[in-house]
């Protein structure tokens, strides 16, 4: 029996000790230590250690704020030199004798987030997994100025970091894709009106630096400025401040405006200078910076130095290659020309602003001399899209749809080199390829084609492709062997639709938009978007070409030959594709 009793005793002892441990843990709270330390440093002897709670009263809400149990010296100027957490809070509003923020009334959480009820440092600072509002330290806390202060009509003193973020949001053209109510309207990308209410600061930063980190299939480009921590932090602070759920409405907001913000002036008379400002995202004569083309598009000055973003095509030649009407339409709605362009629609620009942009772009006149050799031509005009290795992977290629042609596939070059000259001269409609005829002379174009052919075909033996002709309808001489020798009739779009669903959708998609399930496994080039009307309706894409591409496949691409289809079926498919892209279908 004694053995049992001993076990009982030991377990009772263990239980007793653990009870003590749990009680100790309940009693042992950080603020006790901090408060004792604080009063000791101040030489105060008569004090009680207690939880300092502020009930922050806002219309409809009472925030419980116990932060000053540890941060007890926050509003005591004598504690300025103390170690954290006891130190006095630095002044919030610069240049005033007495800071208007009284921490005994507003507490800490209002600005700094975190969990005001908690007393444990990790819990209180919102470091526990999943806490929706982690602590905002230092300047970042300016995100919460607008929880109480209305910013619509002024600039808030002490919120410089936030204001800088606001300016950067416009300057960096974020507004082109993202909506923030009252600032911008665009349905291109997720709305950010409640960005601060939904996301943590770190999430916002991460989403800018690496757009695919949080949304795997994000289409947001990675901008060049994301490596500048200050810029990112300022924009994230601004975004963190975008919260639908405010503590004060605009009319009950405390005053605190020092310098009135300029009215949102719009440009009403076109000028090159205005266009330059818009292009750079800089304010122009008191207007708000609402441009920033340069974040995506690069331009060349007259010495040929390139500067700007790597997301959209270079714009040095855009007026010369596209014409100003096209450029204006493209700014307002890029999809009217290029079906799959990712460029945001800047539909808010007025005519004067569009005109300014066009006149600014017209001033760009860099051009190569007429005796320039192939490599130099290629390196200037082609390389940003088609890449140094001619493989269609230039630095801006990733954001283009369709992707630039890959000339490293020699089969393609060998089969279709006759088209190259026309494509360069007149451009390829519905894609990012412009017409170069006003920039390059015919002789330069031939030099360029020669350069591409030499580079692509060297080291490869020739590639011979079968020649086929489009069957003539009703031609009794030509028999459709796979269709039991029947005479070929005009294509029937309905039969074509059926055949398309059977043979084409895995790559080209049910909608024929080139986004079939197998397209995800392909890299370069991707299946053609067959409802890109601008592309499909240009002269070079005739029925003969479609027939050849379907029957024999496209050399140097994943498009395989379909010689198991009868001529009639192919014609039906062509009819179906055509029916999709007629004017009525659009």
């Amino acid at each position, binding site marked *: *029996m004694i053995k*049992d009793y001993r076990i009982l005793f030991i377990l009772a002892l*263990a239980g007793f000790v653990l009870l003590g441990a749990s*009680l100790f843990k309940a009693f042992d709270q950080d603020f006790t230590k901090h408060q004792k330390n604080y009063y000791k440093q101040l030489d105060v002897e008569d004090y009680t250690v207690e939880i300092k709670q502020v009930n922050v009263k806002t219309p409809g809400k009472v925030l*419980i704020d116990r932060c000053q149990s540890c941060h007890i010296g926050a509003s005591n100027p004598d504690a300025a030199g103390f170690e954290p957490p006891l130190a006095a809070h630095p002044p919030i509003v610069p240049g005033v004798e007495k800071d208007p923020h009284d921490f005994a009334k507003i507490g800490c959480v209002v600005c700094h987030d975190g969990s005001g*009820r*908690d007393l444990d440092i990790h819990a209180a600072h919102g470091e526990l997994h999943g806490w929706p509002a982690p602590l905002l330290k230092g300047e970042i806390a300016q995100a919460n100025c607008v929880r109480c202060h209305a910013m619509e009509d002024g600039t808030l003193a002490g919120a410089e970091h936030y204001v800088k973020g606001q300016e950067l949001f416009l300057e960096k053209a974020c507004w082109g894709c993202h909506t923030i109510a009252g600032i911008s309207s665009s349905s291109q990308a997720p709305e950010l009106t409640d960005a601060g209410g939904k996301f943590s600061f770190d999430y916002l930063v991460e989403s800018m630096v690496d757009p695919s980190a949080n949304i795997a299939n994000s289409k947001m480009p990675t901008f060049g400025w994301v490596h500048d921590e200050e810029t990112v932090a300022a924009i994230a602070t601004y975004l963190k401040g975008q919260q639908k759920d405010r503590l004060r409405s605009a009319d009950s907001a405390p005053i605190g405006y020092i310098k009135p913000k300029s009215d949102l002036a719009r440009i009403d008379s076109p000028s090159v200078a205005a266009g330059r400002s818009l292009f750079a995202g800089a304010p122009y004569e008191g207007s708000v910076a609402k441009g920033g083309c340069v974040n995506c598009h690069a331009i060349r000055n007259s010495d040929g130095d390139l500067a700007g973003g790597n997301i959209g095509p270079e714009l040095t030649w855009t007026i010369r290659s596209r014409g100003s009407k096209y450029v204006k339409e493209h700014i307002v709605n890029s999809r009217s020309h290029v079906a799959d362009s990712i460029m945001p629609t800047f539909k808010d620009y007025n005519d004067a602003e569009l005109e300014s942009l066009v006149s600014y772009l017209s001033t760009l006149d860099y051009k190569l001399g007429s005796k320039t050799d192939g490599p130099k031509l290629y390196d200037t005009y082609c390389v940003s899209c088609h890449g140094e290795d001619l493989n269609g992977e230039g630095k801006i290629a990733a954001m283009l749809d369709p992707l630039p042609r890959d000339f490293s596939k020699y089969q393609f070059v060998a089969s279709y080199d006759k088209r190259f000259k026309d494509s360069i001269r007149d451009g390829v409609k519905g894609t990012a390829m412009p017409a170069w005829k006003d920039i390059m002379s015919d002789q330069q174009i031939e030099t360029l084609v020669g350069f591409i052919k030499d580079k692509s075909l060297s080291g490869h033996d020739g590639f011979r492709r079968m020649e086929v002709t489009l069957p003539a309808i009703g031609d009794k001489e030509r028999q459709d062997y796979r269709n039991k020798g029947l005479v070929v009739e005009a294509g029937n779009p309905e039969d074509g639709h059926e055949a398309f669903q059977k043979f084409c959708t895995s790559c080209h998609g049910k909608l024929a938009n080139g986004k079939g399930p197998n397209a995800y496994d392909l890299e370069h080039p991707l299946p053609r978007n067959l409802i890109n009307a601008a592309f499909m309706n240009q002269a070079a894409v005739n029925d003969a070409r479609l027939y050849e591409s379907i029957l024999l496949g496209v050399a140097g691409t994943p498009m395989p030959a379909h010689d198991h289809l009868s001529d009639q079926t192919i014609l039906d498919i062509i009819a179906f594709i055509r029916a999709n892209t007629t004017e009525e279908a659009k």
Partner: protein
Amino acid sequence: MNELIEMAKEFGTKLYYSFFRHRLDNTGLTKSKIMFSNVLLHIQPVKIHKRSVKFKTTMGLGLITFYLFLILSVTGILLMFHYVPSTAIGPDGLPDAYSRMLNLRSNVFWGGFLRNMHRWAAHGMVAFVALHMLRVYLAGAHRGGREFNWVIGCILGLLTVFLSYTGYLLPWDQLAFWGVKVGTEIAKIAPGGALIRGILLGDTDVGSEALIRFYVLHVAVLPAVMGFLIAVHFFRIRKDGGLAKPADTSKEKQIPDEEFGEVKNNSVFKSARSYKLVEIVKGKEPKVNEEVDQMMFAWPKLIVRELIVLLGVVAFLSLISVLFDAPLEGPADPNHPTNPSKAPWYFLGLQELVSYHGFIGGIVIPGILAAGVMVLPYIEIFFESFTKTYRKNIPGVWFAKERNLENALFIGMYLFMLSLIIIGVYFRGQNWDTIYPWVHEVTGGGH
């Protein structure tokens, strides 16, 4: 003076006998009286088979489960003082139920500790129910007239899981919300599951109605049913003659008599055997001969051992609760699912199965497991009757040779579920993709 002492003695004696109905000596009569005159002890027999107190017999698993239930009841009632089952958004923008969790953590002395105790005890109870069931099966203790008690035990096990599951929602944090959400989505697959889900949730989705219903189930309905069934479970063990044991235990090595505490014989007959109490137990005749030699007084050995188990459970739970805080994520947000969304761990095996095939994983396999396991003893009887197999009755024997096949199958089933749960908890990451816990942090719940 002496008179005073006499008077005091008399007073003391009367006081003592007003509380207790027994003396304090080593006689068999006292030991019997202690057991049957004490409300907490009379549930147990005065005399027990010696093997009942051996560790090997039960490993205390059923008892641990019962103690966990008691601890859960006590801590649960205490937590109710500080809890409101409401999703109304409070003054500081958090749902009421959730801000109560924050209060427990920061503004209630010992609140965090009690919540930890409750949480870990709940998980422990599910685990120990499973272990207890495994023990009972492998020792064949579900046979020999105890088949129906096995069914009751299975119902108790399901109740435990359901209690744990209903409690999982109450903190109203992301973990709770999405854990329960996933669980009820699994329920949808079953025939009539949508109906049951509707009754449980009181709405088309997990929301404030669900919280109230889960709360009522958790604090009133289920514990009441559970308490009643526990009483039936214990009563039947008692009426079936205590713990299951083989017909002949004379060959077994037992704890020596002196370990059960000394028994003075103050009978007038001076014969040790004649005074031993005869139990009313199942069987053809009162067991007198060798069986009686194997019986011992329950007081004090059994009671002390039970107390040891209780203290062990409390001490271990306290240790866990001091060291590890119960999880609490951000407040429930129906618009932002956690990725992955995992049900509590005891449902993760199911969730894993469902991820392969909705019908087979969600209905067929769990149906076989729940219903099949429940009627397992009857299946055994069925086969024995219809194949005319005579198997020596071997309840209470670990890994009896005659039962190798069943035991192997049963262990196999446990291993199968266990591995599914381990995969679900540790090897599933975002979008239910396979991850390795040593490469990626395991998130999304399960605990």
